């Protein structure tokens, strides 16, 4: 592969490119969907994607699903021509921040490679989980399991002498449980995901998760709805994760360059307070066990964790090489794309809010009348985060009271993020998927339980 890619790059340079890179990705994947114990679909696939970027004043890009030398050379010509013609109409040319060339091969870690596990075994595990969930109670009317695993082989080569191979696993299970009693319908969602192999299905104990979700769903049937109003509110790790992710996305230099866009709220806010001082937010694509893990980003830059917000102050944006040049800073390996057909963009991987040393009990001990919210059913993110939570509890005189049905809440990033007055000492994550074009790719948010001095919740 190395010889082929180097040849393609040489060709681009020969045409007159200031910079060129080529990415090849082969994704082996399996998806399984099981609804009410019935196999809805199982789809095995191999996706081969490639793209070539040529910088000649502006970017010319050519992507394809072939790695034959002829096709790749044809793609180089197209990309170069587009850049050259486009540049004639653009007064200001694009520059990218310099980085040191790297040669490296990152192999699959010690995982159980999902490509070597027969699909029947994967189906049996999910069917067993599905059965366990439905066996909990006759009021469970629907269970919906979406499983997917993939292994991505990535090859990267650029005109500065970098050549990188990296192989990345990912496994995910999403569980929806619906219970009904008379007219009352309640739903819960469980999500398990990590950059891991089939062993995740053992360690994450999906059987136990399924049974717990099923029990929670049934419990919600008889729970009361919370009374709408303003309360001190404590949210669990998943909801913290949602807030972390939404905030993290806004630290992308690309969104911050588009102040009018939904995620452009942090435009021009470097060095300013953007949320409460108890919040320190890190984008970390390097910690094992999280949903997104890579050594090198889509531009071949070594990935490093970055504290984007420290004690409430926006310290830096996350960058591609292009935005790093524009903002006169270092790119730290945060360019991402769903596959090689898509172009690298600075996007968060795992947005993590730092924990403190307060226990959960300490978080609630001084709340006379409040609400504890758990789990995310659905949400929209951006300047305004709207979230439907899975369930809750009343907090009365510093202790958890009766269970409540899921509430909705709205967090206005410009106001409510300043109302967070404490974070706890625990940690968990919410794996989510970002849609770009017609592809999902994993992101996650995480952190401890956090407390809002006051937050408006709806029923």
């Amino acid at each position, binding site marked *: 592969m190395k010889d082929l890619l180097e040849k393609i790059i040489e060709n681009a340079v020969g045409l007159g490119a200031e910079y060129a890179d080529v990415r090849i990705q082969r994704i082996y994947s399996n998806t399984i969907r099981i609804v009410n114990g019935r196999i809805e679909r199982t789809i095995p696939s191999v996706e081969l994607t490639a793209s070539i970027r040529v910088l000649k004043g502006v970017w010319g890009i050519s992507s394809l699903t072939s790695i034959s030398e002829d096709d790749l050379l044809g793609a180089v010509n197209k990309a170069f021509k587009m850049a050259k013609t486009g540049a004639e109409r653009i007064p200001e040319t694009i520059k990218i921040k310099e980085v040191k060339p790297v040669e490296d091969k990152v192999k699959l870690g010690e995982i*159980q490679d999902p490509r070597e596990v027969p699909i029947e075994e994967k189906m049996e595990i999910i069917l067993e989980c599905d059965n366990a969930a439905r066996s909990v109670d006759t009021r469970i009317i629907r269970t919906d399991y979406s499983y997917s695993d993939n292994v991505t082989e990535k090859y990267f080569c650029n005109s500065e002498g970098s050549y990188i191979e990296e192989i990345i696993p990912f496994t995910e299970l999403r569980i929806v449980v619906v219970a009904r009693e008379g007219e009352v319908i309640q739903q819960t969602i469980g999500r398990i995901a990590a950059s891991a192999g089939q062993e995740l299905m053992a360690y994450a104990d999906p059987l136990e998760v399924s049974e717990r979700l099923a029990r929670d769903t049934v419990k919600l049937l008889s729970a009361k709805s919370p009374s709408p109003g303003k309360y001190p509110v404590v949210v669990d790790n998943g909801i913290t994760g949602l807030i972390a992710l939404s905030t993290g996305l806004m630290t992308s230099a690309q969104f911050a360059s588009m102040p009018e866009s939904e995620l452009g709220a942090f435009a021009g806010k470097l060095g300013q307070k953007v949320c409460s001082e108890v919040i320190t937010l890190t984008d970390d694509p390097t910690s094992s066990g999280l949903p997104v893990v890579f050594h090198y980003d889509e531009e071949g830059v070594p990935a490093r964790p970055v504290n984007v917000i420290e004690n409430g102050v926006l310290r830096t944006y996350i960058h591609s090489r292009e935005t790093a040049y524009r903002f006169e800073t270092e790119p730290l390996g945060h360019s991402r794309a769903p596959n090689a057909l898509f172009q690298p963009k600075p996007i968060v991987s795992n947005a993590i809010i730092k924990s403190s040393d307060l226990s959960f009990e300490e978080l609630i001990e001084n709340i006379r009348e409040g609400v504890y919210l758990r789990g995310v059913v659905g949400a929209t993110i951006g300047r305004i985060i709207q979230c439907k939570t899975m369930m809750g509890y009343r907090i009365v005189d510093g202790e958890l009271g009766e269970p409540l049905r899921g509430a909705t809440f709205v967090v206005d990033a410009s106001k409510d993020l300043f109302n967070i007055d404490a974070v706890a000492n625990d940690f968990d994550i919410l794996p989510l998927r970002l849609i770009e074009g017609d592809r999902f790719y994993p992101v996650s948010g995480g952190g401890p339980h956090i407390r809002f001095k006051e937050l408006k919740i709806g029923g």
Partner: protein
Amino acid sequence: MSEEIARVVKDLSSLYGVNSIVILNSEGKGVYSWHRTDADRRRFRLSERTIKDMLDRAVEFVRLAGGDQVRNIIFRGRENMTVIEHLENIIVFAFADMRANLALLLIRVRRVAENLVKMFGGTSI
């Protein structure tokens, strides 16, 4: 009876990578054992007493740590893994190589334990 047990255990012994299975009652008395090959049988030098001791120690260990009951114990080495599952009056021991699907191994060990409990009810075996 051993035939009935064998039928239940088949679910587990048919899993790719599982090499040895031992079924004990809660007193630690062996009621059934299975090995994939004669070589596996010869290699296997673990006594029923030792399996039971291991479980007892784990129970004590977790109790001292402030935990509740032990459902299973998992050991993972470089090339093999071991699972001991305890359910009511049944102990299931399984020894497998790393190529086995651990998630499925856990599920089937538990299923075998449940089916054996169902088969014998609360009676001691």
